[in-house]
């Protein structure tokens, strides 16, 4: 068990961290995930790589934990509020240095959709089934999340351009 944990924890815990956002909460959920992985170990039949199998469990268990804490209940509200704050708030205060920092600032729902689609490679149909929303809703949230991340990560994406260039590169529309 320890060997499995040592080998796969860097990947599995990274998935948990991305989906949860808050490192403190992620610690508890990561332990739940590993308990679930070891509990389900007798059902692992070797038809997929262990890492892939454990990865699925990690995603599902983390989503369950997030659902349990009702973080996903306010998906639409949160993402609308956060998108609005990008348009009208102080961009300088919102800039992020890495994609990890930026996704941590998304609402739980927006982060979940973005991470599942753009990072973990889930389809909108799979996301919709997992989250109990429509594929169209998943798409809508993904595009809003990308728009917010693009703003948050302007210095990284634009390659550390000067302040003047940055304003040109991220037009207000």
């Amino acid at each position: 068990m320890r060997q499995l944990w040592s080998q796969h924890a860097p990947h599995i815990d990274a998935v948990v961290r991305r989906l949860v956002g808050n490192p403190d909460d992620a610690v508890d959920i990561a332990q739940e995930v590993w308990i679930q992985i070891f509990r389900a170990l007798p059902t692992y039949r070797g038809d997929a790589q262990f890492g892939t199998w454990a990865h699925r469990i990690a995603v599902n268990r983390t989503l369950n934990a997030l659902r349990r804490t009702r973080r996903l209940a306010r998906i639409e509200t949160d993402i609308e509020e956060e998108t609005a704050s990008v348009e009208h708030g102080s961009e300088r205060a919102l800039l992020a240095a890495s994609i990890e920092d930026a996704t941590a600032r998304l609402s739980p729902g927006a982060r979940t959709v973005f991470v599942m689609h753009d990072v973990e490679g889930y389809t909108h149909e799979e996301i919709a089934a997992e989250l109990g929303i429509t594929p169209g809703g998943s798409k809508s949230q993904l595009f809003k999340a990308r728009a917010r991340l693009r703003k948050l990560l302007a210095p990284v994406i634009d390659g550390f351009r000067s302040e003047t260039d940055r304003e040109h590169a991220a037009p207000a529309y």
Partner: protein
Amino acid sequence: MLHLPIERLAELVEGVATPAEREHLLGCVSCTRELEAYRRLVVMAAGERRRIAPPLTSWDSLGTRLREAGLVAPAAAPRRARHLVAIDIMRRAAAVAVLVGGGAILGRMSAGMQVADAVAFRANPAMPGAPAPGEFAANAGQGFSSPQDALTALALAQRQYSLAANWLASNDTSSSALAPEQYRTRLAALDRTAETMQQAMRDAPADPYINQYYLATLSAREQTLRRLGTALPVGSKLGRF
């Protein structure tokens, strides 16, 4: 035509533009640049999947939860022979000595001293056979007269390497800076390496290779932290990685 809405540009990363949108994109530098930025964002996101990080929890902590869940048997306290306990204490003392030495190096460096003064790896000119500053102690394939000679050469090479790497971290401006993301990835990897080496030192505190890798890892970590500090956007401070 007005600029394309930002969410539409975000969608066009994998979507199909309408004829009107295509025409607009052909003539609008701003929208084209934004679309390219969204593509870069998606590429960055896909790269995150390969990212690994230090585990969020320790095995000791997880083991307690696993025992509570009945997934592993309660740990039995092994009884160890007295002479083994004594050896273990000596090993731990040696490991602590190495750790304190490494910590002192980092502490002195973080206190603002010059790297060349703070790093204890500095070659001692008074040492017989020590190379002059800037001279690499290569043996040129001539072999060594004894294991001690080989170890001495290894130590000198290590010192020279550390000195040069630290000097470059502080003074070299010719090489292009990496993105902060890459430095963070490197830091995470170095942390894992340092942890592995620490564990290895508990079992073999006198092993010269393990000690060298551990100290080299600490040195590389310090250099990377310095690099990251200069790669962050203006006004940003390194809080965590």
